[in-house]
Every structure is written in C-alpha cells, then in structure tokens.
C-alpha cells in the first residue's frame, strides 16, 4: 500500500510537469487549432539557456525568471517569423513547419551545447522533502501549481487575458472591437513558450539535460491534453496529473519502466478512438 502511495505522489509531481506542457499545447490549440509539435524542443532550448545562465554564476531564481522572459520573447518571435506565413496553409504544410522547427531547435541545441547529457540543479532545499516525496518533487509540484494559478488569474480577470480568449474564439468579432488579433496569437505563443520553459526547468533535474530530453515528456503532454480535451485548459491540467499517476503506477507494477512510454501511445490512440473530444473538451461538429 505504501508503495502505491509513493508512486501516486511521484506521479502527481511529474504529472504536474506534463500538465504545464499540456497547457502550453492547449493554449496554442485554442488560438490556432494546431498542435505545436515543437513545444517540447522549445522548452528544451529554454532549459539550456537556464543552464548557461547558471553556469555563468547567475543565482537560480534570477536565471529562472530570465529564462522565462527569454522563452516568452522567443515564442513571440517564432510565431511572428515562422508560423505567421503559413497561418492559413493546409494542415500538412503547418505540420511540416512544426517538424522543421523541432528539428532545427534540436540540432542547434546539439550544435551549441553538445549531445552529452548534463545534470541540472534543483533549487529546492532538503527541508521541503516529506515522507513520500523528494524535495524536488514537492517543489516542482508547487511551482507548477503557482504557474497554473497565475495563468488562471491572467485569463480570467485581466482585460488582456479576456482579449486573448476572445481572439482565439472569434477573430472577426475581435477585430471589430479593436483587438489586434495577430498580436494576441503571438502573445499566446509567448505565454505557451514561457510555461513550457518552466516545465523544462522542472523536469530537467529528473530526466537530465540533453537535446532529446523532451520527446517523451511531449508525448505524455499530448496524452494529457487529449485526455482532458485538447481545447480545455482545466482538462489539460487534470489530464496531466492523471497521466503522471497512471504512468508511474503502470510502470512500477504492471509493464515495467522501459515500456512506460507505450502508456502514452496507448492513451493517445485510445482517447482519439474512443472519445476524441477528451473528457472536458467541446465536441467538434464540422459542416460539410
């Protein structure tokens, strides 16, 4: 029983990280109806920036904030420069651009920082640990929850957050009330990238830092986003936690750690087949 509890809590900690990345995916999906395949690599790249800052002697939380700011600007620039030209292109073209972005970020990271695996520090003091959770697990979960709360407040209570939701839902009407829809999309990309960067910095102490560190995490985030409903932020968070717990329990007691990733594959195809709108998503009806 204790072993189960241990796995559940560990699952919640990693699940929180999946939840943040899933939320980043959902934010971009809501605004553009696209799934950003490069979300993981963007987070990975930001984490390398954090690593460089730390190596240069910048204190952890300063490096953390600088990295988040960098990721935000980076996300905005990517939307403006790379994504904007294919905004109305067929799905295949956009998917190809995302994959191109993924490959470029991955290789540039490898080029600059080499492919050797690096350790990444955890900022949380040992005192944070509890009986069933390591200090980093507790800290990562807390940071995730703070990020989610901030996002909730931003989208729910600020005029800019409201305008971003409006632009995602109904671009035409948004322009008619004076919202600069193009900038709202870019802002959404920036926020998604910033949230992803936090996820990257929180997961790096666990999986270690290397250019391919996010591929598995991205898959869990896909599974989480789909499980919750790809257009539901709340669903993505819940989905992330569920996926984290499931992954840990199945990995520990059923299929073994080496096949954990298959849990994500099965979840993704399973959800898509049985209930494509997830548990909280809105059912899409397409006109023909």
């Amino acid at each position, binding site marked *: 029983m204790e072993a189960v509890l241990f796995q559940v809590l560990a699952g919640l900690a990693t699940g929180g990280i999946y939840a943040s990345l899933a939320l980043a995916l959902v934010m971009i999906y809501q605004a553009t109806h696209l799934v950003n395949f490069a979300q993981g690599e963007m987070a990975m790249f930001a984490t390398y920036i954090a690593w460089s800052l730390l190596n240069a002697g910048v204190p952890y939380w300063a490096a953390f904030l600088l990295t988040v700011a960098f990721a935000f600007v980076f996300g905005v620039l990517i939307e403006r420069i790379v994504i904007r030209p294919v905004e109305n292109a067929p799905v295949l073209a956009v998917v190809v651009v995302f994959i191109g972005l993924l490959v470029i970020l991955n290789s540039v990271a490898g080029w600059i920082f080499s492919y050797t695996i690096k350790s990444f520090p955890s900022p949380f003091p040992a005192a944070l640990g509890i009986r069933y959770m390591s200090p980093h697990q507790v800290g990562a979960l807390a940071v995730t929850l703070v990020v989610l709360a901030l996002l909730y407040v931003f989208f729910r209570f600020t005029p800019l957050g409201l305008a971003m939701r*409006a632009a995602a839902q109904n671009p*035409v*009407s948004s322009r008619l009330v004076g919202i600069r829809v193009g900038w709202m999309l870019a802002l959404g990309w920036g926020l998604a990238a910033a949230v992803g960067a936090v996820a990257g910095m929180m997961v790096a102490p666990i999986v270690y830092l290397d250019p391919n560190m996010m591929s598995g995490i991205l898959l869990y985030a896909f599974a989480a986003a789909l499980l919750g409903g790809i257009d539901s932020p709340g669903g993505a968070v819940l989905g992330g936690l569920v996926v984290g717990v499931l992954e840990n329990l199945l990995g520990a007691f059923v299929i073994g750690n080496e096949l954990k990733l298959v849990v994500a594959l099965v979840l993704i195809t399973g959800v898509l087949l049985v209930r494509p709108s997830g548990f909280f998503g809105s059912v899409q009806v397409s006109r023909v």
Partner: protein
Amino acid sequence: MTALLELSGVQAAYGATRALHGIDFAMEENSITALLGANGAGKTTTLRAICGMVRTEGAIRFAGQPIHGRRTEHIARLGIAHVPDGRGTFLHLTTEENLRLGAYVRKDRAAVARDLERVYGYFPRLKERSHQQAGTLSGGEQQMLAVSRALMLAPKLMLLDEPSFGLAPLVVKELFGILRAINAEQHVSMLLVEQNAAMALDLADRACVIETGRVVLTGSADEMKKDDAVRRAYLGY
C-alpha cells in the same frame, strides 16, 4: 461642416467577384442613414468595406480622415462599431465579458463602468443574464448583446447589419425604439442595413438605395417613403 462618413467611388471584390462597383454617399454627424436594396445588392459589403473587412478601392473618409486600407482593428479604434450580420457573439464568454470586450480599447475605467450600467438600463434582460454564457442567450437577446457590445466602444458611428434578422416583430419594435433613443441621447450616428425597409425608413433620416453594387438613389427618408419605385420595390405597397 464636413461629413462624418464619406464614401466615393468605393469598389470591392471577393476574389474575382466584384461586389461593389462604385459606392458614393455621405452621412452627417448625429444622423441615421438606411441602406436599402435587394439581396446581393452590396449592402453588407458596403459595411464591410467601411470596416476594412474586404479589399477595397476608392476613398473612404471618417470624420475627415482617410480610413480606406486601414486594418479593421484600427478602424474600430477610431470609433466605428460594427454590429455584423450573424451578430458576432463570443458564444463561449459570458454576457458581461462580451460587453467588456466591446470596451476593450477604452482606457477610462470609470466611464466604461458608467456605460455598462447605461447599457443594462437600455436592456435590463442582459443584466439578468450577465454571468450566463452568451451562447445560451436567445436570438433577440444576442442581438441586444451585439448592439450593446458596439455601444460599449462609445462609438461615433454604428454600422448595423440587419438587426431585425430572425427576431419576432415585437422584439424588433423594442430594439428599434432603443436604437432611436441611443441616437437621440448619445448622439451616435448609425448606418443601417435592413431588409425591413419600412422600419428602417421610420428610424432613418436619410436613405440610399443600392442596386448591383451602385448607389442608384439617395434622399431623405420621408422622400423615399413617397417615392413610387422605392415603394413598389422595397415597401410592398
């Protein structure tokens, strides 16, 4: 006195299909102009052209300032509020969020709060439904919401695209009464596209008749009501 809105030689096209062949008219401040015409004559396109929602040629001036070729969001910021056909409701947001979006470009919070109360005064039913998702409102309520959202911009000019569409006659009457009051009390000018020509002419000061993308007749609303051709074609008596 310069005209509030002035269109001269405005042409517009959807891809290869020309919808407007040269629209000319002007309207004065604090006035209501009705655009009459058959389906497909170019009334909706004229409103879209003013808002920069279609590619246009020709000159459009608003309060003396050229606005043609500007982005839609920019034109909105100048004080032109468009109530589009289909109402353009943000279905997944609440009624109040819809209204707040209407005032998105305004920075004077106190005045926005006052306007919100004023709008609720015109349409008490929206206040009752202020925290309800806008998608759950009835058609009439959504039309009121669309007008209110436009009003929250504190516009100089409102473009209304078929506000009576799909509404019960009583609701239409109520809505037009409020539009008249808004014009009288807040000095908002209106450019009105309506299928219901009789109601439109009752409300409007002036009217333009559009046929196949051209203005063929302009005059005061009273003259129009008496014009035989207009009566036969649009008033049906």
